[in-house]
């Protein structure tokens, strides 16, 4: 369960907002370079969970360790803050909101390099070009402000920016949900390539089961802040045990799909 073979170890994570418990008891591990899908409806606690992992929310209980280093409490000092940032990065849902409107694409990636890696200006410029090239963006996009780019291009910028810190784990919080379906496929393809090339671990938060099947090795189903089912993606999607997982699956429109059945199953689950 724990030890050097696991990249990310999360144990008994808890988070409350007033009277509402957003995350009750979440434990999971992520082996190096593997891809875990976190699925569930809105309000199931999946986004809160990953926000705690990247340090945007403070857990009320439980531990988070990446590469053996605990990150459950706020970072003390600059060195620790930077070290933690190099462990895990995040790509946000809406690429229209996640890029600073006043900073060009090239600068946005370069800033991260300047913060994390001391290097010559020319070397840094080259690295920026390399990172942008990796996500399929060229010099023209590098000089542009985010406002001049399409949603798909912006999400590529966000991915390049996250990769710039060379994290061990990349969190993708509904990272393709805001994009057109055809663009979704391109970005997913790109992510698959990056994972093979960089060997980075993916944590894929989504409500879209087709995306999960495409890009994850394992999947974890969250409901009301608790894990209801977890295991290899193919196994769970083909033969779900928990009624809630079956409900999620039956809610996906397909040939011969009856919305009434899904709605009835939802009601019976309470």
């Amino acid at each position: 369960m724990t030890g050097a073979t696991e990249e990310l170890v999360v144990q008994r994570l808890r988070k409350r907002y007033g009277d509402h418990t957003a995350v009750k008891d979440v434990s999971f591990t992520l082996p190096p370079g593997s891809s875990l899908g976190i699925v569930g409806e809105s309000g199931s606690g999946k986004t809160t969970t990953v926000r705690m992992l990247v340090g945007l929310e403070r857990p009320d209980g439980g531990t988070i360790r990446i590469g053996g280093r605990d990150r459950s409490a706020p970072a003390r000092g600059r060195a620790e803050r930077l070290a933690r940032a190099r462990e895990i990065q995040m790509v946000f849902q809406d690429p229209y909101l996640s890029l600073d409107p006043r900073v060009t694409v090239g600068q946005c990636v370069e800033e991260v390099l300047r913060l994390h890696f001391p290097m010559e200006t020319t070397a840094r410029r080259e690295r920026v070009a390399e990172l942008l090239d990796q996500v399929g963006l060229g010099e023209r996009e590098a000089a542009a402000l985010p406002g001049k780019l399409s949603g798909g291009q912006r999400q590529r910028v966000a991915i390049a920016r996250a990769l710039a810190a060379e994290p061990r784990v990349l969190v993708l919080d509904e990272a393709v949900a805001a994009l057109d379906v055809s663009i979704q496929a391109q970005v997913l393809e790109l992510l698959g390539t990056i994972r093979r090339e960089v060997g980075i671990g993916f944590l894929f938060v989504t409500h879209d089961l087709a995306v999960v099947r495409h890009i994850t090795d394992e999947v974890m189903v969250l409901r009301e802040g608790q894990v209801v089912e977890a295991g290899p993606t193919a196994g769970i999607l083909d033969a779900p045990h928990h009624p809630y997982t079956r409900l999620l699956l039956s809610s996906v429109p397909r040939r011969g799909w009856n919305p009434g059945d899904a709605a009835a199953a939802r009601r019976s689950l309470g």
Partner: protein
Amino acid sequence: MTTTVSPAPPSSGALRRRRGLGGLRVLGQGPLFTAGVVVLAVLVLIAVLAPVLAPYDPDVLDLSASLTGTSGDHLLGTDQSGRDILSRLIHGARTGLLGPLLVVGVSTLLGTLIGMVAAWRGGWADALLSRSMDLAFAIPGLLLAILLVAVLGSGMAAPVIAMAVAYTPYVGRLVRGIARQEKARAYIESYRVQGWSGWTICLRHLLPNIAPTVFAQSAMNFGYVLMDLAALSFLGFGVQPPTADWGAMINEGQSAIQQGAMLPALAPSACIVLAVVAFGIVGEGLADRIAKRER
């Protein structure tokens, strides 16, 4: 006393075209806005070039030429002491603009600092700063000014300090509101995830993105402060005679009204109205522009 600029609700693509102080561009804002900007520009020019523009020394008395009315020599006539009203108006623009400039400068600086710290730190720091600002709201600015005059003596210092104290919570509350909203946006959160310190994020990224809204509010405040300071000098608490000041000129001109001379009081009143309205129009125009771009 003050209207706050209501920030537009966050929406997808809201940040697409927000950049720096681009709101200063005059074109495409409508004739009213342009007129406001022109009036303000002329006012500033007059204030700067007062010694060159004024036909007479504003403080020279000529009791033989008391209340002469308009003439070729004195375009707006003279006051009871025979001083040239036009020259006094021109020099009055200096004190009229300098006071609000100091007040708005200090209150914007302090208010932005307080509001940003409250929004960024949250928790007890936010509670402490917000309650302190609520407390400061409860003290009327004019009353505080009169109290300070009693302590510091009359002159410009006491009203300026009092007004700066009175306006700081307005700016602070506005900045806290928009900074909180901005802090929750994904682009600021992504800076946090990247490992930047709070100070760097606030100064380099958050501040430039909220600056246009704060600037628009400051333009409106400028007009209100101008009026408040004029009221104080009208009451005799501000700039002291013989220094030319619009508020003080209205006070001095009151008695002339009974003698049938309207200009000594009317001319400075018109200047105050013109300046306050111009600042209001420009401030509202800038705020509208920002709101439009946020959509």
